[in-house]
């Protein structure tokens, strides 16, 4: 599909999975993830894939786990609470080295901690946070690629906006380079060979003497792999006007798009403000944030939450500039929809406020 | 029905604006003395039921109405209306 078409974000994400070769999906309805599931239920049969209306989130991720273990590109997802239920599995998928895309459709921005540090143990996953539908289409595909590359789950951090915004998008297969063979995938054929395959969070080496699983060994190996992954993955980030900015605004996801819009407006009006939009939430683009902060007087963080990513920003900046949190949780009465503060007006005035306090609004401008 | 004297043992208070126009009460009423308006809409834009003679006070309507639109009363003395009255 190379003609732009009007697609709802959820449908576009589903379509992106299709073109990226995802052929197994399982999910359980929960706003704003529901429509992704509907999209997959509609698309999978047509392309010879499977979409399971799983009976719960835990069963959904279990099904995707089973499918992924056979080498099929597989995905699941949910929103905050449903993802909480999947946490045990997400962490253990890292230990089992099973690739998977997990569509994390947050209701607000307040699931950052869960997405980046939610699991038990030391397991960690790459988290990609698009800001709009076209980016969601790209990062859905990238997520599937990275999952396969590192044999690890990848989270796509979307939100209510991305789920429900219709935009004209082109959904085309993206090529992110070659991938290693899935020689570990289960298909039954290695049975009886003396080297039958095993996929297990307890270890991947078949016992050859009688010691059983050695979890110490296995955890150490996985830890090495994670460190290698975190070193290898180039953190993705978008920056704007950071060179001479006195105030830097950091925001991710859809709020990052609002911030970018406001910062551009304010720049046009002569305010010395810039922005950094982390795209990989893990690994966090600390270097880019730190570079942007170095010349600035203040780094202000906007999040639709009580402040979660702000910790990662502080860890990146480490005192090199003042940090202010200018976000806050905003939601409508149903907790699904759009809060009154997530709009150009309120965000602009919060940014302007910091800028005024930091003296980077020239008299007469704005 | 209209040629016999109609006995009315019960009556209703209808909270018209609470109605969402589902019409479940219409079929539920054994003597079929409820009918939906055809033109009048309530403040939420829904058609709603009106009551005709012959209510028995059986509570079928109030028991089935999903929007708690009805209060049902029974007359201490049943009301009888002759067909000629029409």
């Amino acid at each position, binding site marked *: 599909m190379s003609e732009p078409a009007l697609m709802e974000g959820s449908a576009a994400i589903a379509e992106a999975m299709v073109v990226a070769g995802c052929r197994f999906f399982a999910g*359980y*309805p*929960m*706003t704003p993830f*529901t429509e992704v599931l*509907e999209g997959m*239920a*509609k698309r999978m049969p047509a392309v010879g894939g499977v*979409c399971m*209306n799983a*009976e*719960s*989130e835990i069963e959904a991720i279990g099904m995707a786990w089973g499918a992924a273990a056979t080498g099929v590109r597989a995905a699941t997802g949910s929103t905050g*609470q449903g993802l909480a239920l999947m946490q045990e599995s997400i962490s253990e998928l890292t230990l089992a080295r099973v690739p998977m895309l997990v569509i994390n459709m947050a209701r607000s921005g307040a699931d950052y901690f869960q997405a980046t540090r939610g699991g038990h143990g030391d397991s960690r996953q790459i988290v990609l946070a698009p800001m709009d539908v076209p980016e969601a289409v790209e990062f859905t595909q990238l997520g599937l690629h990275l999952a396969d590359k590192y044999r690890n789950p990848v989270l796509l951090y979307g939100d209510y906006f991305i789920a429900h915004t219709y935009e004209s998008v082109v959904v085309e297969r993206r090529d992110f380079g070659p991938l290693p063979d899935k020689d570990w995938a289960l298909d039954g054929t290695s049975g009886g060979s003396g080297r039958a395959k095993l996929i297990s969070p307890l270890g991947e080496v078949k016992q050859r003497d009688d010691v059983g699983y050695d979890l110490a060994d296995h955890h150490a190996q996985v830890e090495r792999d994670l460190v290698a992954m975190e070193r290898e993955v180039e953190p993705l980030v978008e920056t704007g006007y950071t060179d001479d900015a006195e105030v830097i605004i950091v925001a991710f996801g859809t709020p990052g798009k609002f911030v970018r819009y406001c910062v551009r407006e304010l720049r046009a009006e002569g305010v010395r403000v810039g922005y950094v939009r982390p795209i990989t939430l893990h690994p966090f683009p600390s270097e880019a944030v730190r570079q942007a902060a170095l010349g600035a007087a203040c780094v202000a963080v906007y999040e639709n939450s009580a402040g979660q990513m702000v910790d990662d920003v502080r860890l990146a900046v480490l005192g090199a500039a003042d940090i202010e949190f200018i976000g806050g949780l905003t939601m409508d009465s149903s907790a699904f929809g759009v809060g009154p503060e997530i709009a150009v007006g309120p965000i602009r005035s919060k940014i302007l406020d910091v800028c005024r306090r930091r003296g980077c609004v020239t008299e007469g401008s704005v | *029905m*209209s040629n016999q004297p109609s006995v009315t043992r*019960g*009556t*209703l*208070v*209808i*909270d018209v604006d*609470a109605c*969402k*126009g*589902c*019409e*479940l009460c*219409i*079929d*539920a009423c*054994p003597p*079929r003395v409820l*009918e939906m308006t055809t033109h009048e809409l309530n403040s939420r834009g829904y058609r709603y039921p*009106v*009551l*005709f*003679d012959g209510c028995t*006070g059986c*509570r*079928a*309507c*109030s*028991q*089935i*109405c*999903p*929007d*708690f*639109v*009805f*209060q*049902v*009363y*029974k*007359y*201490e*003395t049943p*009301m009888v209306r002759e067909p000629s009255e*029409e």
Partner: protein
Amino acid sequence: MPAPDDRPVIDTSAPPEVPVRLVDDFTPDLIDVGAHHLCPGCGEPIAMRSIMEVLAEQGLMQRSLAVFGIGCYTAFSNNLDCEVLQALHGRAPSLATGAKRARPELVTVTVQGDGDMVNEGLQEVLHAAARGEAITCVLLNNGVFGETGGHMTATTTLGQRTKNTLEGRSSAEHGHPIQAASLVAGLDGAAYVARGAVNNAGNVAKTKRMVERAIEVQLAGAGFSFVEILTMCPTGWFIETVDAPDYLADTIGAVHVGGVLKDTLADA
């Protein structure tokens, strides 16, 4: 049927002036606020009314606890004048268990939908039933996830069209419906199990008697009691409100057949 205009419309704006007796109020005592956002023709408020009536009529207003699941009916968890404990999706039976064990004098009733109970939390209700918890679990079964938009649940009947089984549920692809009440009835701790419906006034009355009996069983300490209530969901079924009662009878009602499945108190 005579045209409405040839008969006088009764004034129903206020109670009549002549001596009358109120036989049914807008809402029963334990429903505080009748207004709600559920769809026109939804069967859930009807079931809710029955449950609350039973508690009030049996004089249990001041010792009852309703534990709610998450579904459209959740809208009622803050409309009631009965004490309410709101559970997460699927978890009501465990919360009810904890509450009941901590305060055995509480008459404890859960209200869950089919998505909540038979999908997300199937094992919760089965474990509670096997344990013979002295609680009453009510299943509002409409065969869909009403709230999220009408998707298939584990009780959806074969052939039923839902938002994500657009060609109708097929056993090959989506499996068979679970008959929740039957499953529960098979467990030793379950003392009373029945299935009713609210698609017409007669069924509403029958269902109310089932709820009554379930509460009696709970009060008698005879074990776990369970009432499945088939409810209309015209929105999730994508049909007109007036067609919903018959649709209920013809589709889900034909598979999830009504009646009392088990009553050990009566059998004993």
